[in-house]
């Protein structure tokens, strides 16, 4: 199970990758494994405003729907529309081609509230 060092994480199993004030968001390898086969993705609407900790997208397995929460607040500036026709990318490449959307951070201080790889890894290994 991969927990890339350069990423930050949430307790709700999103990962975030920072480039300047912009962060790219996806779900972790651990999360996709727990969800199992991803068969549907509802991406944020264009111009959606993410609010830290609030649902902004949906990922669905055969059995159930799961909310994806915005790791930080800010405007959604880009979505990965490839997921709409090929949601299995989330299972195949969760940290790469399976990314969900990008947010322009409103308050860059929120970045430091996210978990480091080690802390997130501990959360996964103790809850499982």
């Amino acid at each position: 199970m991969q927990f890339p060092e350069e990423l930050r994480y949430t307790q709700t199993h999103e990962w975030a990758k920072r480039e300047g004030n912009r962060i790219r968001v996806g779900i972790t390898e651990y999360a996709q494994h727990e969800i199992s086969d991803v068969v549907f993705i509802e991406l944020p609407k264009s111009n959606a405003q993410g609010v830290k900790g609030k649902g902004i997208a949906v990922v669905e397995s055969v059995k159930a729907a799961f909310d994806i929460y915005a790791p930080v607040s800010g405007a959604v500036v880009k979505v990965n529309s490839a997921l709409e026709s090929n949601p299995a990318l989330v299972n195949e490449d969760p940290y790469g081609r399976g990314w969900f959307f990008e947010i322009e951070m409103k308050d860059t201080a929120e970045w430091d509230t996210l978990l480091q790889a080690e802390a997130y890894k501990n959360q996964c290994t103790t809850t499982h």
Partner: protein
Amino acid sequence: MTATLKRLPLHEIHVQARAHIGAFGDWEVPLYFTSILEEHEAVRTRAGLFDISHMGEFFISGKSARGFLDFLLPRKIDRLKDGKALYEPLLNEQGGIVDDLIVYQLKPEKYLLIVNAANIEKDFGWIHSHVPSGVELENVSEEKFLFALQGPRTLSIAEAIFHCDFRSLGYYHFLNLKTQWGELFVSRTGYTGEDGFEIMGEMSAAEGVWKTVIQAGQSSHLIPIGFGARDTLRLEAGMLLYGQDMDDTTSAVEAGLEWALDLEKPNFIGRERNSQEKQKGATRRLVGFEMLGRGIPRHGFPVEKGGRSLGVVTSGSFAPSLKKNIGLAYVPSADSKIGNEVEIAIRSEKVKAQIVKLPFYKRSHAIS
């Protein structure tokens, strides 16, 4: 919610096979072993083995058993003979569905009923309250295992294990076999829309039979199947799930089970309402629909049309064999026509769907 869940007799074997365990009613069952999509595909194209030992089994026997069943159940008892089985709804006095079950005739004076796990106590109580003298009702649910062997390659697997001719065993027929695992009932039935068999025997033989089938199926790429794929397979095949797609308040006609009623039979429990609905039409109907817009319908989502509420989704899922999102819902009869467009309220959106013919999926080669 701290009540302990019941476990299948082979729970430990499933855990060793890396089953992902989850809740199904009062039971802890394997939801999937590898993945729901893989398991679904295996049953549609090869073979799969399900442990459905949570299901209930009753024996009904005695000199008056036949006459009693003819009154208790809606189909004509003449349809049954030794080695023949029937799918039937068990109806209440108001014509609602107490359960759906399969009745097997072992001999003219002995019958087996296989009922849903969640309804074992309710069914037993209901049947018991009607049992006349000269009829014995016995609940053997805890003494029996039940497996389903399903998929296009299962005929050769079954023949390799039991060394008998299943080719001439018709759909909804069964054999009573004397084997090294004791007496086994093997029926040509299932809940997947594929060819296949269901195998019932004594609990003490469960492990031996399970391991033998897994072994015998290896060359056919048989795999164990969890309850996740069981649900997608049955939904594609247009088969109903009790407690979701029908309950004590839905009539058999509303649920689309008219074909499982012999309304010309003058006297059986639940006949009146169903007979009236057959003649005059029911106010609502269970329909199948497929999504035209994006989104997966789920149990409980509202069904609407132009701001008018029509009903709710009873079952809904991504359909792996069809690559579509499908569901079942009760809608007013006037809105139940094939081709009618409706909307499913999925979270904050109204997404277009179209009523389609059931079943959603039909295998290309029927069983003789």
